[in-house]
């Protein structure tokens, strides 16, 4: 799966979670900018697990949407 395709799915999940426009969500967008805290990230990770059929280990290193795209890409490669 391409990173663009992963980003599209992630943006849709995140936008649904925090009620924002998916088009506004770019790889460089940080979770802090989106007002997302650790429980939101856990919630998002659970949806990501369902969407991609993977198990995501949430860590403090996940700072931006791009970090999450890379993590999903590595787990689905």
């Amino acid at each position, binding site marked *: 799966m391409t990173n663009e395709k992963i980003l599209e799915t992630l943006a849709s999940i995140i936008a649904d979670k925090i009620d924002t426009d998916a088009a506004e969500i770019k790889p460089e967008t940080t979770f802090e900018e989106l007002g997302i805290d*650790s*429980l939101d*990230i*856990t*919630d998002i*990770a*659970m949806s990501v697990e369902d969407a991609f059929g993977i198990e995501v280990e*949430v860590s403090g290193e996940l700072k931006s949407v791009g970090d999450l795209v890379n993590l999903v890409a590595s787990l689905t490669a």
Partner: protein
Amino acid sequence: MYVPPHTVTNDDLSALVETNDEWIRRRVGIAERHIAVTESTAGMAAAAARNALDNAGIAAEDLDLILCATVSADNVSPSLACMVQAALGAVCPAYDINAACSAFLFLLETAAGWFARGRAKKILVVGSERMSRIVDWSDRGTCVIFGDGAGAAVLGAGDGYLDSVITVRGGDSVIKIPCSAGKSPFWQGSCEEPYIQMNGQETFKYAVNAMCGDIQTLFNRNGLTHDDLAWIVPHQANYRIIESAAKRSGIPQEKFYLNIDRVGNTSSASVPIALDELNRSGRLQRGDKIILTAFGGGLANAACLLTW
């Protein structure tokens, strides 16, 4: 139910730890909680029990069994149930069951066994917690979450307890409340502070999955959808757990009875306090189908389907 009259607001807490009202409301959905000043766990349990007995029109001597739950007892022994029995002047057997925040559901399951064997006609079940005794008041991650109080119900033999799910995944890596270390001069192991330890993210994930899974199991086994339910009364652990579980389950959030904003997380007292509030508010009708659902340390989670 019984809650101590003293309330502690988020602003009050911001004087103790680095936090603020907006953060706490957004993070866990709590505005204030009741905190014991002189009330004991047993005293609150007995007060809630008396209210339940009055509401049911039952005298203490007519009880056949008392079952209690707590993670914040005044004493390891006698059990909370023994202290409640003494306070009420009851003469029936009385014992505790420890399943942390899910314990009230475990009490109901145990009571169902006594009823099924014809050993009891009236059973008192009580969850009582003085969580303020076992939280680390310097840890803003946990001290803002919990509150004190007790909830009780008088159960009668009947066919209203339709189905239940009970699950345990044993381990202490997600939620743990160590006992007091003691003062043995021979002990060479580690000593932990006797305060609640919780991995917030793992707890969130476990709780949402447990709630969604247990509710779905009850729906599947009983051929129900949320349209058939009057209410779901969840353990009031964190507003966002309930919000996420509702969304994932496709159940309207209005179906979930919530009082966490006013009482916080009262562990085993949480479900019976919420249920009593709901009942006394007149929003439960005889014949209504409801689901109670809880999760917590153990890890132990449970849900049951009732006809009110």
